[in-house]
C-alpha cells in the first residue's frame, strides 16, 4: 500500500490552471523528489497535500487516509512539512522552546521537556538552544529547528519544500546528511520538492519531473544519473545541471 497516493490532482486559480492531472505514488520509507523549474507547480502539489489549498479536485491519500478538503487534526500526526525559508518558517517572537512545545500542547502530549530535549539532540542541537530566538540562530540552525518542529509529532511522512536552497553549500551538506540519517533511523517517507538535481541525486530514490503543471516523467534517480531519461525536458535539465550544452538553454526557453 502506497504511503502517498495522488490521482488526477487538478487545481486552478480563477481561470489559471496550475495543476493538470498530477498523479504520483510514494511507497513507505521511500524518498521521492518532485523536480521542476519555477512555475512548474511542484510547490503547489506539496501545499495541496499539506492542506493549504483546498479547492483542488482529484483524490489524494496519505497512509491510507483519504485527504479531505478540510483541515484534519489526525493528519497532523501523519504528515508534517519543512519549509524553504529558514528565516520565515519560525515565529520571530517565539523561543525555540515555545516553537517546539506548541504542537505538543495542541495535541495534549506530556513530557514536554524530555521530548523537546530529545528532538533537539536528534537534529544535532544541544539544549542550550532552547530559549533562544530565531534571529539569534544561523540559517542552518534554524532549519534544524524547523526539522525538529516537523518531527516532534512523530509523523510518518515529511513534505519538504526546497529545504536547503536558501542555505550555503557547506550548511546544505550538513542538513542533507541529517535528513538522510533521520530517514534511515525512523523509516520516514519523504516527498521533496527541489529544483536542484544534485540534491535529488543525493536524497531521493525516485523522482517526477514537472513542467507547467504536468508531470512529464517519473523515473528512478539511478536512471537520471545514467542519462537514461526518456523525456527531452528531463534530459535538458540533466544537461543544464552538468553545464554541458549551452544551446540547450535556448531551446528550453522557446
Amino acid at each position, binding site marked *: 500500500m502506497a504511503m502517498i497516493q495522488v490521482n488526477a490532482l487538478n487545481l486552478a486559480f480563477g481561470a489559471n490552471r496550475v495543476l493538470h492531472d498530477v498523479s504520483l505514488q510514494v511507497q513507505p520509507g521511500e524518498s521521492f523528489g518532485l523536480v521542476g*523549474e*519555477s512555475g512548474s507547480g511542484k510547490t503547489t502539489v506539496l501545499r495541496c497535500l499539506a492542506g493549504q489549498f483546498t479547492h483542488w479536485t482529484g483524490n489524494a491519500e496519505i497512509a491510507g487516509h483519504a485527504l479531505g478538503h478540510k483541515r484534519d487534526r489526525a493528519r497532523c500526526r501523519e504528515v508534517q512539512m519543512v519549509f524553504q525559508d529558514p528565516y520565515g518558517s519560525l515565529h520571530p517572537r517565539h523561543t525555540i522552546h515555545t516553537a517546539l512545545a506548541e504542537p505538543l500542547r495542541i495535541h495534549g502530549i506530556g513530557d514536554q521537556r524530555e521530548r523537546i530535549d530529545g528532538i533537539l539532540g536528534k537534529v544535532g542541537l544541544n539544549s542550550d538552544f532552547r530559549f533562544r530566538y530565531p534571529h539569534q540562530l544561523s*540559517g542552518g540552525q534554524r532549519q534544524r529547528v524547523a526539522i525538529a518542529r516537523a518531527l516532534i509529532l512523530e509523523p510518518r511522512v515529511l513534505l519538504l519544500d526546497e529545504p536547503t536552497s536558501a542555505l*550555503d*553549500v*557547506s550548511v*546544505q*551538506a*550538513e542538513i*542533507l*546528511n541529517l535528513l*538522510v540519517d533521520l530517514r534511515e533511523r525512523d523509516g520516514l517517507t519523504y516527498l521533496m520538492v527541489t*529544483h*536542484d*538535481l*544534485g*540534491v535529488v*541525486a*543525493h*536524497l531521493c530514490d525516485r523522482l517526477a519531473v514537472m513542467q507547467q503543471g504536468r508531470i512529464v516523467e517519473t523515473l528512478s534517480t539511478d536512471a*537520471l*544519473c545514467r542519462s537514461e531519461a526518456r523525456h527531452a525536458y528531463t534530459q*535538458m*535539465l*540533466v544537461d*543544464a*545541471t*552538468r*553545464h554541458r550544452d*549551452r544551446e*540547450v*538553454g*535556448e531551446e*528550453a*526557453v522557446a
Partner: protein
Amino acid sequence: MHSPVSEPPLRPKLQVDDLHIRFATPDGPMHAVRGVSFNLSREKLAIVGESGSGKSTVGRALLKLHPHSARVEARTLAFDGIDLLTASPWTMQALRGKRMSMIMQDPKYSLNPVVRVGQQIAEAYLAHHDVPRAEARERALAMLESVRIRDPQRVFDLYPHEVSGGMGQRIMIAMMLITEPEVLIADEPTSALDVSVRLQVLDVLGELVRERGLGLIFISHDLNLVRHFCDRALVMYAGRVVESLAATDLDRAEHPYTRGLLGAMPSLDHRRARLPVLRRDPAWLAD
C-alpha cells in the same frame, strides 16, 4: 563597432591591493573584508564564497556604494589609474554606469517597477550622453537585440513585472552595457534564475564580454558555475582571499576550504552516501 582587442595589455583595468573594509555596527566595528588583493584585465574573474565571506562587499566597494560610515582602506584601489579611494563624488558619478557598471541578482528588485523597460535602458544611456531621445531609443533597441531578445519593439514597452526572470536579467545586462563600460561587476546575476535560463543569460553575458573586451567580475556562491564560465577565481572566506587560481584548476584546488566546498556539493555524477561536511579550521582566520 568593437573589434576584439589586439593591443598588448598595459596596466590592468582594476588594481586592488590590500583592501580592508570595516563597518560601524551598534556592537562595534565589523571587519568585513581583510586584505583582499587582485588585478583585473580583460578577463572574467570570479569572486566565490559563501554568505558572509565579503564577496559582495568587495564588489560594492569598487563602485563606492557603501555608506559613509564604512571605512574602506587599501594600499591601492584604482580603476584605469584613477584612485578610487580619494575620488570625489563627481568623479565616481562619471565612472559609475559609464565606465564601470554593476548587474545585481534579482531584476524584480533592480528594475524600476513603474517605468517601461525600454525607457529605463534609454535613460541609462541618456544619463551619460547628451543625445536626442530618438537616438537613445534606437540604441536601446539595438541593445535589446544584442542580448538576444527576439522582439525588441514589443519588449521595449513592457513593464518589469511583465517579463520573466531570464528576460529581466538580460534587460539589466542591456541597461548596464549600453554605455559601453570597461568593467562590469555582476553580483550573483543568475542565482535567482532557473537552470535552463541561467545558461542562456550566461551565454549572452559571455558573448558581450568577449566582443567588447570587457573586464568582468563575477560574484557567486556557485563553484561549479564559475568553473565553466570564468577564467580565474578568487575564493573568499571570512573576508579573506584564501585561494586564487585559474577556473579550470578549481578541481585541483589546494586550500582545504575550497576543497571542502567542492566536496560538500551534491552531484549527479559523484554520488556518495554521506556528503563530507566542511570542518572550519580556525587557522584559516589567521591574518
